[in-house]
């Protein structure tokens, strides 16, 4: 396809250059930045990246494709359009005529440089040194001259566009044009400014895109996947990116890493040092290894270095430079990695993408932290548009989980666990379940301005023109102009990006999880299991219900009522089903729908549900009355607000019973909509009580109660299965322990949450014992398992009310007081007694057992204290004599607790 061809044409001359330039790789990073004239400053990312100017070579490159006349014509037209266009674009961006020339200049500069290195008869080293010399000294003086010169021959501008029909020619021509790299550099900066304009333009464009998608002309075309230069690039791929435009020409990228000892690639198995990432042939090692060892392996050099010895790696044989792989270059900061967020073809036919930068730890504000892994990258919230030409090839950035699994993905594997906020210099974990939709939605709304602002912040050395751009952007900047409160949501929360750690805490990374800790983690309620055991039947039922409702051509609204005691997986099952269905939608087998989830208990008032639903459907926030009206219009009258409204809508209402109002109008309205012919609304209600529909007005129960699904409590086998499915692969629990816990819970409530919590608590107790043993240094190293005793302790803690312990432990007077209460209860048979009666009993008991009667006031206080703990229930103390008292627990409990108290043995008489 045409997208491949032009690239090849460009590629060929570059290939030629690659060999002589190889040597660059060996240069230290810091040097390379300063020595190359192209980037005399520390990397100005966006600007330098942008400097690959799109049209000059591109448009012309299409000309060889002339065999198809229409295309050629188009190409030529594009050329023209382009050349006319550029000034226009610039004028929009408040750049003047002079600037418009500069892009061409930069091209020249670049070409020139390339050519120079290519055709210079000297050896690569010589050219290198030459350049180096030229680097800073001449630069300044020549620069102005250069610009003037370029301005003089305005015809030059056309040379790349019209005059050159093939690449070689162009280069030759460029060789003779005396532009020096310094000029090129300068232009690049200007480009950077230009870019702000481009992004602005793009942002408006992309926002308009959805509306005027038909107007194809001079429009960007967005792709999901592009085949470019022989590689397939998809949205979401990670790629290496050239840091300088000559970076690709800078050397041949070795596909295979060379051995650090013998400096040859290939030939036998290589092993990677986990510390320096150097590759070694197994047989080059001393002593040689037979096979790749399990676990971490550190090479002898690193080990020696750790021991404080000063050891150098073997030097490469003379005349042979060690070729660096792309990975090495990236980690040394000579390359960039980006994640492709979107791909498009510009109006002029060049391919661009919007990338999200990755950073290496050294580039962050906190630098490389001791716990950073060698291959670690950070994803930033920094975006930029770049031409696809600067892509080198794919790399592989993985989440820690994938990374741990990755075995032989090759050398270009990186780990990314955190996102780095370049404005606040803070880190945030990447959400494990990447809710892309949400994140993307947010991005789409805020990115453009957001980016623009940031450019303004970071590129402080920009010149005047850009200032104006800033001023325009300023209004869109949330942080400075009008500060918005974080907790009041007008579309989104402000300032949340501030939240983040300045440094990744060490304990998170350096800690190796024990089995017990892993067990605790998997038993967390928050960890979503991969699959839900024991609810297959119910899930199937839900799935058929939803699919039936969606796929029905009529799409008549339906209603499903799900009930069951807490902790039986109602909400989870529905969400799991929705997830499955969503993946089917993505696969295209089901038509799209919208899904709204509401929780009755999280609403401030039942009526607010209208607002929430309406907001979820349209994104607008209105008052509930308004929302009700609009929703009524939509569902009852079939009035569609937008095009997508045609999709069926699934409404999941959790804790449905909370929506019951006095006249039950909220429930009625919601359940009435599905019955309307055009509503396409499907309501799934979840509540605990089985007979909720029956408790409601008949007109509601007739609408809701037709289809029901019951989630029964789990029995012990199911609970056991749930727990052991989570604990799969972990050797942390005794088998009986799990069974014990599940039997216990099944006997009481059948609440899966409870069972999981018991097991987690048991693991915690076991872990606590292990850790306190370690701290006292009397550890008996062995396999630590959660035993029955631990589970029993957890169950005791969970189910046993603490009152017995408190009664056993309370003060003497309280014990006497309680005894008197029990005694009184036995005597009268009445549960309730008054303080006066009780006080007489107490005084009787006291005198007959040789205790001093403490006085009424004290006794009253004692009673009130017991009342506070709810061991007894009592009225307020200011009723004095008339205060009514009652035991809050069975008298047997009191008898049990106090029967064998040591300090008051005579209490047993009265119990």
């Amino acid at each position: 396809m045409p997208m491949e061809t032009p690239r090849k044409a460009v590629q060929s001359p570059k290939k030629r250059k690659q060999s002589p330039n190889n040597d660059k790789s060996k240069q230290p990073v810091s040097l390379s930045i300063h020595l190359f004239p192209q980037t005399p400053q520390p990397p100005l990312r966006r600007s330098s990246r942008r400097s690959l100017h799109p049209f000059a070579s591109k448009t012309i490159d299409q000309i060889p494709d002339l065999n198809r006349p229409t295309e050629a014509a188009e190409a030529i037209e594009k050329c023209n359009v382009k050349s006319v266009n550029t000034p226009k674009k610039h004028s929009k961006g408040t750049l003047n005529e002079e600037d418009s020339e500069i892009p061409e200049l930069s091209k020249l500069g670049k070409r020139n440089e390339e050519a120079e290195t290519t055709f210079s008869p000297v050896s690569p080293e010589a050219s290198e040194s030459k350049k180096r010399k030229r680097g800073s000294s001449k630069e300044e003086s020549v620069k102005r001259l250069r610009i003037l010169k370029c301005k003089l021959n305005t015809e030059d501008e056309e040379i790349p566009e019209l005059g050159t029909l093939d690449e070689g020619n162009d280069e030759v021509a460029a060789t003779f044009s005396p532009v020096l790299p310094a000029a090129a550099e300068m232009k690049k900066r200007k480009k950077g400014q230009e870019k702000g304009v481009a992004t602005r333009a793009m942002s408006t464009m992309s926002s308009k895109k959805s509306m005027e998608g038909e107007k194809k002309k001079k429009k960007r075309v967005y792709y999901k996947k592009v085949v470019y230069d022989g590689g397939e690039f998809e949205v979401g791929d990670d790629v290496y990116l050239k840091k300088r435009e000559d970076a690709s020409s800078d050397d041949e990228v070795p596909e295979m890493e060379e051995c650090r000892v013998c400096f040859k690639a290939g030939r036998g198995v290589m092993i990677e040092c986990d510390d320096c990432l150097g590759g070694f042939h197994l047989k080059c090692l001393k002593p040689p290894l037979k096979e790749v060892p399990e676990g971490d392996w550190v090479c002898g050099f690193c080990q020696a270095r750790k021991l404080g010895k000063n050891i150098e790696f073997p030097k490469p044989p003379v005349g042979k430079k060690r070729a660096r792989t792309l990975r090495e270059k990236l980690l040394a900061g000579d390359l960039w990695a980006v994640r492709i967020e979107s791909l498009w073809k510009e109006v002029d036919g060049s391919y661009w993408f919007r990338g999200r930068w990755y950073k290496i730890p050294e580039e962050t504000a906190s630098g490389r932290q001791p716990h950073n892994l060698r291959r670690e990258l950070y994803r930033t919230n920094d975006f930029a548009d770049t031409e696809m030409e600067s892509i080198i090839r794919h790399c592989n950035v993985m989440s820690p989980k994938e990374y741990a699994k990755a075995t032989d993905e090759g050398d270009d594997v990186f780990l990314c666990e955190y996102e780095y906020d370049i404005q606040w210099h803070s880190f945030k974990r990447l959400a494990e379940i990447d809710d892309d939709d949400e994140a993307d939605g947010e991005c789409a709304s805020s990115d453009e301005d957001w980016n623009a602002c940031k450019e303004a912040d970071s590129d402080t050395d920009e010149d005047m023109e850009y200032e104006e751009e800033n001023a325009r952007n300023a209004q869109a900047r949330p942080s400075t102009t009008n500060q918005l409160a974080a907790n009041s949501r007008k579309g989104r929360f402000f300032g949340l990006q501030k939240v983040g750690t300045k440094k990744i805490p060490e304990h998170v990374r350096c800690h190796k999880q024990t089995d017990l800790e892993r067990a605790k983690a998997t038993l967390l309620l928050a960890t979503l299991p991969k699959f839900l055991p024991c609810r297959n039947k119910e899930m199937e039922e839900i799935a058929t219900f939803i699919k039936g409702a969606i796929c029905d051509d009529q799409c008549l609204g339906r209603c499903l009522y799900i009930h069951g005691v807490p902790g039986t997986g109602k909400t989870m099952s529905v969400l799991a089903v929705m997830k499955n269905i969503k993946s089917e939608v993505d696969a295209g087998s089901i038509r799209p729908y919208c899904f709204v989830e509401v929780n009755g208990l999280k609403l401030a008032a039942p009526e607010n549900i209208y607002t929430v639903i309406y907001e979820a459907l349209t994104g607008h926030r209105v008052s509930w009355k308004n929302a009700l009206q609009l929703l009524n219009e939509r569902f009852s009258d079939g009035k569609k607000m937008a095009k997508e409204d045609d999709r069926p809508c699934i409404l999941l209402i959790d804790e449905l019973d909370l929506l019951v109002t006095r006249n039950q109008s909220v429930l009625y309205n919601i359940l009435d909509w599905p019955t309307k012919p055009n509503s396409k609304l499907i309501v799934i209600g979840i509540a605990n009580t089985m007979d909720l529909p029956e408790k409601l007005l008949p007109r509601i129960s007739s609408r809701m109660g037709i289809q029901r699904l019951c989630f029964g409590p789990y029995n012990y086998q199911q609970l056991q299965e749930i727990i052991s499915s989570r604990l799969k692969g972990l050797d942390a629990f005794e088998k009986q322990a799990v069974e014990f816990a599940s039997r216990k819970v099944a006997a009481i409530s059948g609440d899966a949450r409870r069972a999981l919590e018991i097991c987690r608590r048991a693991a915690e107790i076991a872990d606590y014992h292990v850790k306190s043993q370690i701290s006292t240094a009397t550890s008996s190293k062995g396999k630590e398992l959660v035993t029955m005793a631990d589970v029993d302790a957890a169950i005791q803690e969970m189910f046993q009310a603490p009152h017995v312990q408190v009664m056993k432990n309370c003060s003497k007077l309280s014990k006497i007081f309680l005894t008197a209460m029990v005694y009184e209860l036995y005597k009268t048979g009445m549960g309730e007694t008054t303080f006066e009666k009780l006080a007489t009993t107490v005084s009787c008991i006291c005198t007959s057992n040789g205790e001093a009667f403490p006085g009424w006031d004290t006794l009253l206080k004692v009673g009130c204290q017991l009342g506070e703990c709810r061991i007894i229930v009592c009225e307020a103390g200011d009723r004095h004599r008339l205060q009514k008292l009652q035991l809050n627990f069975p008298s047997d409990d009191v008898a049990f607790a106090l029967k064998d108290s040591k300090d008051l043995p005579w209490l047993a008489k009265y119990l």
Partner: protein
Amino acid sequence: MGREKEKEKPSEKALNLLRSRLADPNFIFKPLSDSPDSNYSKLKFIISTSVTEACNNSILLLGPRGSGKVAVLELVLSDLLQQYPDVISVIRLNGLLHSDDNCALKEIARQLCMEHQLLFSKVASFDDNSQFMIAMLRECGLAHKTIIFVLDEFDFFAQGKQRLLYSLLDAMQSVNSQSVVIGVSCRLDVDQLLEKRVRSRFSHRKLLFLSPSKEDTERFMEHILSLPVDSSIPQNYTAEFNGRLKKIISDERFKELITTYLSFNFTIGHLVRFQAVSYMDLDVGFLSLENFKTALSSNQRQSKLECIREYKSIHDSSQTSDNYAANVCLRAFEHLLQRQLISFIDNKGHNQSVEFRPVKLLISSAELHQGLKSSHQCPPVTMLRAARTHLENPSAFWLLTPQHLYSVMH
């Protein structure tokens, strides 16, 4: 000048030190926290695992008032804040102040904003605040920051619909947040108050705070009261002070005294409130057994009986010779009302004159008897005695009015 001189005194310094110790819960609870079975280390383990292992947790701290729930919690929190700076934010709520869900969420949002230097809006709605909270929980979880919610007087949150608890606990089981909810309550049955869905989400970890054992108490007294050797207080004074203290503590009478004191309430908070130190004689400069005795007797005052004796002063102020003059009686009656030894039977008849409203006696006859024994002459005593005669005649009791009393008295 004299005051300055006193400042020099070691006894003054010692007293100040002891007082500051008694007011500092951190100092009081420190020695009780070293063993692995103590609540301190258990609580610390639970919270710190949720910091290091990024998990959610919920705990209830239960125990009678004065057993040191909040003090231990504060101790743990301050330790953890030191150990893990910047990653813990503590949100403190009190059931007495924030039992209303709306206001509690607002307070949470406010404290979260404070903590993270965000702008807080007072007018944000319930929905906004709760969504903000959930968003913050998520963000903080992603940034490895733990949010600790301390809900003091937890039982007040367990009222009504319990929206706050539900959204807190529900957030903990769905988003990848990292938070701990700590409920503090003196009600032992507080988990029964939770609504069933909230209860299901609550993790049912409970830490019970009990009173210390007898030996602990003694150790504890010594820990608080003995002076440190390495301080600005002169060495010889410290030595003598500590020596005397040891003698007192080992004294049998002292042990008895403490037992009587603690027989009423057996918690550390109560022990700390034993004001023996404030009775210390600065001239002597040492604690003595007498100090403890005075403190005990001041603690065992029976306030109601003292109330009865107060009539004398009322009578003196009215300056009549007649012990039973009507105006004096009326004043005494009002006095009794204010002291709530008697109270009106019902709230009806506010417009009636005090004299004609029925009252009831709130103290028992035995108490009255005891009070009467101590003072014979006072008219209110007689008045109460009159009431007592009525008390013995229960049918008439409910009709007791001041008018009636007068007639009985004369």
